[in-house]
């Protein structure tokens, strides 16, 4: 009789580790990443796109907006605390999140999974774009904090390069997508929209917000490259007149009170 072969003992691969209940710090870091994406980064994005929209009124109005922002108290501290450092953290931790996820879109090409993947690619586009944008527009070239009225011309020169224009348009689309889906994700993952219908409705609201921001953003780009303000002056500082305006002179000569006095009387 043949002796029974001793059966081989195999060790299983370790597989996915179980939950480290209550241990570690990823909860804090991940929630910080999520929160910073909405406040202050998302809030700043809206501010930035609103400010850009001033470009449609021309170089002087745009310069005035840049001047206003740079005149905020403690502006350099605000800039670092609420823009640069949060952006840096959100970007670096975002890449870390991406690297730890294993996309399976090939097997499960479902809408949520598409959005999950799109959020990672649009985030990467945003990081690369914002990196060069901050470097070239904020730190290199004409210093806008000191020369706010040079802003329009500086951006116009940048967008004169068709490649750069394409980069700005692609980044505008990617960032508006990333932000609008980001706030949808925020609401879902912080338990603000725990219901399917609530998420659907909020999704429509986020899509609408994203579209509005995108249209505003693209319109501002148009202001720089379109026919309205071609060859903007390097310095768009408005001339300040020390003389009484002709309108007031005319008012006096015809015996009419200047409009300000009329308003005061009524």
């Amino acid at each position: 009789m043949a002796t029974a072969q001793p059966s081989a003992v195999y060790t299983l691969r370790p597989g996915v580790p179980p939950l480290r209940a209550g241990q570690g710090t990823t909860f804090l870091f991940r929630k910080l990443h999520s929160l910073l994406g909405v406040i202050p980064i998302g809030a700043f994005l809206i501010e930035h796109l609103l400010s850009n929209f001033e470009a449609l009124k021309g170089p002087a109005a745009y310069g005035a907006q840049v001047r206003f922002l740079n005149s905020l108290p403690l502006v350099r501290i605000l800039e670092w605390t609420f823009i640069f450092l949060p952006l840096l953290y959100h970007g670096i931790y975002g890449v870390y999140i991406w690297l730890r996820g294993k996309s399976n879109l090939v097997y499960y090409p479902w809408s949520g999974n598409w959005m999950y993947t799109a959020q990672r690619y649009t985030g990467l586009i945003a990081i690369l774009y914002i990196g060069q944008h901050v470097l070239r527009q904020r730190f290199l070239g004409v210093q806008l904090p000191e020369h706010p009225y040079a802003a329009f011309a500086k951006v116009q020169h940048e967008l004169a390069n068709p490649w750069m224009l394409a980069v700005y348009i692609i980044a505008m689309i990617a960032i508006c997508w990333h932000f609008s889906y980001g706030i949808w994700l925020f609401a879902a993952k912080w338990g603000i929209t725990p219901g399917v219908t609530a998420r659907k409705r909020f999704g429509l609201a986020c899509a609408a917000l994203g579209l509005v921001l995108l249209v505003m953003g693209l319109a501002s780009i148009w202001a720089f490259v379109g026919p309205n303000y071609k060859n903007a002056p390097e310095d768009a500082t408005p001339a300040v007149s020390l003389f009484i305006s002709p309108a007031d002179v005319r008012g006096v000569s015809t015996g009419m009170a200047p409009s300000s006095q009329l308003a005061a009387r009524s």
Partner: protein
Amino acid sequence: MANKSVAFEIKRQANPDAPAVWESFELEWRPSMNVVSAMMEIAANPVTADGRPTTPITYDCNCMEEICGSCAMRINGKARMACSALIDNLEQPIRIEPLSKFPLVRDLQVDRSVLFENLMAVKAWVPVDGTYDLGSGPRVFPQQQEANYPLSNCISCCCCMDVCPQFNEDTGFVGAATIAQVKLFNNHPTGKVFKEDRLRALAGDGGIQECGFAQNCVDTCPKQIPLTNAISDISRDVIIQKAKDFLRG
């Protein structure tokens, strides 16, 4: 009527260290055939499509009515229960693989014990054991029962985990099933006693924060458990619990 046949391609692996190989099988079509019944037929006559004798396929299965949770595997690329995978609804050749994220034992059999370790880590039970009769528990209102019933349907098949891009060895994510069970037991009037422990556990590494809301879990769940709703609700509870702990600390 000429007999129709059904073609299968099944991924085989003799042991955890052996190389994976694909084997083709061809069976005669029968009404109401499903993937498990097909593999039972292969076991009765283990011969590949090209006439080569082979071993019966190893797989987990028990109830044949999508209630025991054993027979989860990837069929045509998607994780699902083999017993409810009717042959007539599948594109051929039907490709069958083991779940992708769990340690392989043999062929289609994988070790899914990580789910049970996760359920233990979050105390997914109602504590009623004791040395004397505790009497009847508090009353659960019908409205609460309605809300809990879908969550209680979980069959621990692990499909939600296999399809999750965040469930992997780097994150060690706990997965949707465990989070839904936390909601179920936190809703229970007696189970509630561990509510804070469960929420704190889920804030650990690999906890609820790793969810990327790709929503594959809820799309794939064979029991249609509202997994994303549970993740959203429990996320909020965990955040509030951590904030309370921080402020009281």
